[in-house]
């Protein structure tokens, strides 16, 4: 097995009285598409926010690309942030900038590339995520839900990240759009070789594109591994998730 790019050990998270994680452990390996599953409110987004330094767990350790992100120096943290791309649940595009400007902004801030090269890179990323060319000059409010997801994916890819963090990338998309988005992630991973950590509810995504996954339940990781390994578990969360009526239909196919 290849090197770990994200590893979380003994994570405890609490919001006031509300204990969200109690001793969570997980490992993401290089090059894989890793799924983070669990019911609504089980703390998936919170776990993701802890990986990308938006939130500190109460205790435990988080390592990303070999950096201990809980005790990281300012400059190192700045370097690390350039090595990942994040797609937020709602897209979180900057509403006052066009799609092209949204994608170009990190390139403009962090590199000294000439403007025409930046324009080329931006157009390449736009076409790479399957957006039509005219979308470049549109504002986020003028995009459909699927286009917003694609535009934020293009923005997340702007710096050629080594890890891509996706929070429910296919939620809010129609099944066809969701499948196309899944395919897009797989093909981009093949070409660009990044690691993907994605929070998802989408059974189709889990079945078709996820290499390994973990399931959160009871404030812990109740199972981690490949889909077959996870399916072995008899934990009630997994029972209900995969053997509920929606899950059963899938596993029969």
């Amino acid at each position, binding site marked *: 097995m290849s090197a770990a790019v994200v590893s979380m050990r003994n994570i405890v998270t609490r919001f006031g009285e509300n204990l969200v994680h109690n001793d969570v452990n997980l490992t993401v390996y290089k090059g894989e598409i890793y799924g983070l599953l669990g019911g609504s409110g089980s703390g998936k987004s919170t776990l993701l926010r802890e990986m990308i330094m938006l939130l500190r767990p109460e205790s435990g350790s988080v390592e990303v690309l070999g950096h201990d992100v809980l005790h990281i120096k300012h400059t190192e943290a700045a370097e690390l942030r350039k090595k990942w791309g994040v797609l937020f649940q709602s897209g979180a595009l900057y509403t006052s900038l066009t799609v092209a400007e949204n994608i170009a902004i990190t390139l403009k801030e962090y*590199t000294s*590339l000439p403007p025409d090269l930046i324009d*080329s890179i931006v157009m390449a990323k736009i076409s790479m995520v399957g957006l039509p060319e005219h979308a470049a000059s549109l504002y*986020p409010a003028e995009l459909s839900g699927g286009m917003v997801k694609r535009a934020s994916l293009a923005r997340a890819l702007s710096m*050629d990240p080594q890890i891509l963090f996706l929070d429910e990338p296919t939620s809010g998309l129609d099944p066809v759009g969701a499948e196309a988005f899944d395919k897009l992630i797989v093909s981009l991973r093949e070409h660009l070789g990044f690691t993907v950590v994605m929070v998802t509810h989408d059974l189709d995504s889990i079945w078709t594109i996820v290499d390994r996954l973990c399931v959160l339940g009871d404030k812990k990781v109740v199972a981690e591994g490949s889909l077959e390994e996870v399916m072995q578990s008899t934990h009630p969360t997994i029972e209900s998730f995969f053997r509920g009526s929606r899950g059963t239909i899938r596993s029969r196919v």
Partner: protein
Amino acid sequence: MANIEINYKNDICQIECSGGWTLDSVAEVSPQLKKALSAIGEASDVILDITSVEVFDSAGAILLLNYADKFKGKGYHVNITGASEEQQRMLAMYRQQLATTTTETQLNPRSIAARLEHLGEKSINYVLGTAHFFAFLGETFNALIYYFVHPSSIRFRAIFKNIEEAGVRALPIIALTAFLIGVVIAYQSAVQLEKFGASIFIVDMIGIAVTRELSPLITAIVVAGRSGSSYTAQLGVMKITEEIDAMKTMGFDPYRFLVLPRIIALMIAMPLMIFFADLIGILGGMFIANVQLNMSYSEFASRLQSVLDIKHVWVGIIKGPFFAGLIAAVGCYRGFQVSYNTESIGRYTTISVVNAIFLVIACDAAFSVVLTELGI
């Protein structure tokens, strides 16, 4: 470190690329390539050799492809050699992406025609903006008529809540400003009046200036800054989060549910606030008269009783509903104008306050002229 080295062999210009061609480093070779492109000597073929390129990412690949195209555009025969299998795959992918985008996509139009178009668009929008404001007033009036026809539909709770928010909670700041205005006026006039031995006239001066002009204006300015801006921001955010659309689909007319309660609430609260500001402003003046001119409070009060015609107080208070209507209408109108981005909230909030203050002062001037002509 990215680098290039140019060698000529027979008819061939060989460009050796080396180092890391990544986002962080290709900026260094970009000018070198540009120079190579303009200074290229006698050759028929250009070979871009990337054998010794260690790392390669989207920026490196796209730069290489861009220059390959530029050399081709000058009529050279271009070859990219020495790409590893992975690099070949990347180049092929970006070649495909670049091929689908027409090279002349203008991301930032800067031409004169574009600017003129922009100017024309702005001018038309300006005219349309005025029309929209009247449409807004019309809708509001329409909602008002609905209120009269169906009195049970009046949103009393919303009105009371807005009176509390915009009126009651503004009292401390209005008290402070009105008091200070009273102090300032009294101070300035005390010095002058004392020179003429006409200290007693400070009462006339403060009584009339504060009640008739200053407290309505000061109250209106505070309210515009406090409530006008918050109306714009509230309605703007509701528009962005599609709450207003949700209301419409449920049959809740935003004019009846959002706009009118705010306007009515402010029109009720404002005269009361002005009266409050009158009292506090006069109190401020009284205090200074006492400190500065040794005028006792009872002396001030009895003089005030005899010189302050009640009509001055009424004139000041009557202005209240007019000012309030303008402030609330502009605040709500600008709130509806917010477009779907966060920046426009800030912009329209500023515009709303500036517009409201301007309209209040213009309205005040109109009052002055009309009332003077009428001899009031």
